[in-house]
């Protein structure tokens, strides 16, 4: 079971970014924030909105010093064609075809053999700072992920529904 504060499981997976295939090691993201998100499958009518959503917002995450990695159990070839179909994806899509990484993060739906919709925010020390797993029917909020990332980066106490620019750490705030 992966919990908040745990060191994220180590892995190296093949991935594709801008048409090039290479190895992506989680270790190489040390020192920066990492949004690691799992999704069920390429070529589906339910997922593209969030894969594309993260892609559109990739520059906003980079502005916060964070990189994004998308993971599913599909092959690299499938990822390549899927990225083309979506008109390009602004972050690497990794292939967990052996399902080891999804299992290590405890987000593999063993019955269907695909990943659940899970998002992990991993801090520069490689620890898990935030995780959310939703039902396959419910797409993630890219905006919420960005809000959480910004809140985490303040390293202060952020009240409920905190938005960038609002006060943090104040004792009079309700948490």
């Amino acid at each position, binding site marked *: 079971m992966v919990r908040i504060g745990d060191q994220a499981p180590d892995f190296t997976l093949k991935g594709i970014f801008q048409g090039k295939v290479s190895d992506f090691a989680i270790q190489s993201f040390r020192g920066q924030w990492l949004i690691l998100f799992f999704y069920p*499958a*390429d*070529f*589906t*009518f*339910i997922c593209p909105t969030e894969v594309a959503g993260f892609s559109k917002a990739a520059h906003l995450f980079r502005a916060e010093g964070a990189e994004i990695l998308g993971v599913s159990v599909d092959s690299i070839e*499938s990822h390549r*064609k*899927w990225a083309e*179909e979506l008109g390009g994806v602004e972050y690497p899509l990794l292939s967990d075809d052996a399902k080891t990484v999804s299992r290590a993060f405890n987000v593999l739906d063993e019955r269907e053999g695909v990943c659940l919709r899970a998002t992990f925010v991993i801090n520069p020390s490689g620890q898990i700072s935030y995780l959310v797993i939703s039902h396959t029917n419910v797409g993630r909020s890219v905006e919420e992920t960005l809000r959480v990332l910004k809140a985490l980066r303040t390293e202060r106490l952020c009240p409920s529904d905190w938005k960038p620019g609002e006060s943090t750490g104040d004792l009079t705030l309700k948490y």
Partner: protein
Amino acid sequence: MALGAIEQKKAVIESRARIREFVFGVQDGLISTVGLLAGIQGATESNGVVIITGLTAMFAGAISMAAGSYLSSSAEKEIFDKELREAETLAEKEPYLAAEGLLKALNQEGLPREQSYSIVKLLLRQQEVFLRTFQEKVFGLGSAEINRPLQAALVMAASFIVGALIPIVPYLVLKGTAALYLSIALSALALFAVGVVKGRLAGKSQLKSGMQFLAIAVSAAFLGYLIGLVVQYFFPDISIPA
């Protein structure tokens, strides 16, 4: 096969769906009448009584079978129509799920996922085409009109009459046991012939199909006879007044 022939094929399939009522009607007409007439023939000397009984049973049976066929066919049709409507509502309310369901169905039939995706995406441009394909592939609900209650009832009645007439005819020309034996022989021959017709329509061995029909019908008659013997064994004192 020429394109025209393919287009005609649906109509052929729809018309051949009536084979069910045809086989059911003829078989039931034959078996129920031949048995009834055999019983009556044993009980009376009068050919007139046998014929009147046979004709009455024929019309009563045809009407009853037609009504039954109409009711069962329309029950099935109504339920199918409801399923089709529900599939339609689902596809309208949950287009992503419907698209995903169709994609999965195509994928399971052996088409690679990305190709299935492209096909579904194309189909989605035409709501009506998408809907029909979704109903057929995902729920297995076909659009061929194989369920026509009125037509089914008419075919059933006509088939029953044809089946029932065959064992009656010998009593019009012969008397006594000669008529009885001819009636049984003609009925057996007719059953065999129905099997042959079915074999031809199904593109299978006609002899085998004919024998199968005959064997099943004879077994059914023999089983009935056996049950009669068992009843007689347990209730030896009961006899049917002549």
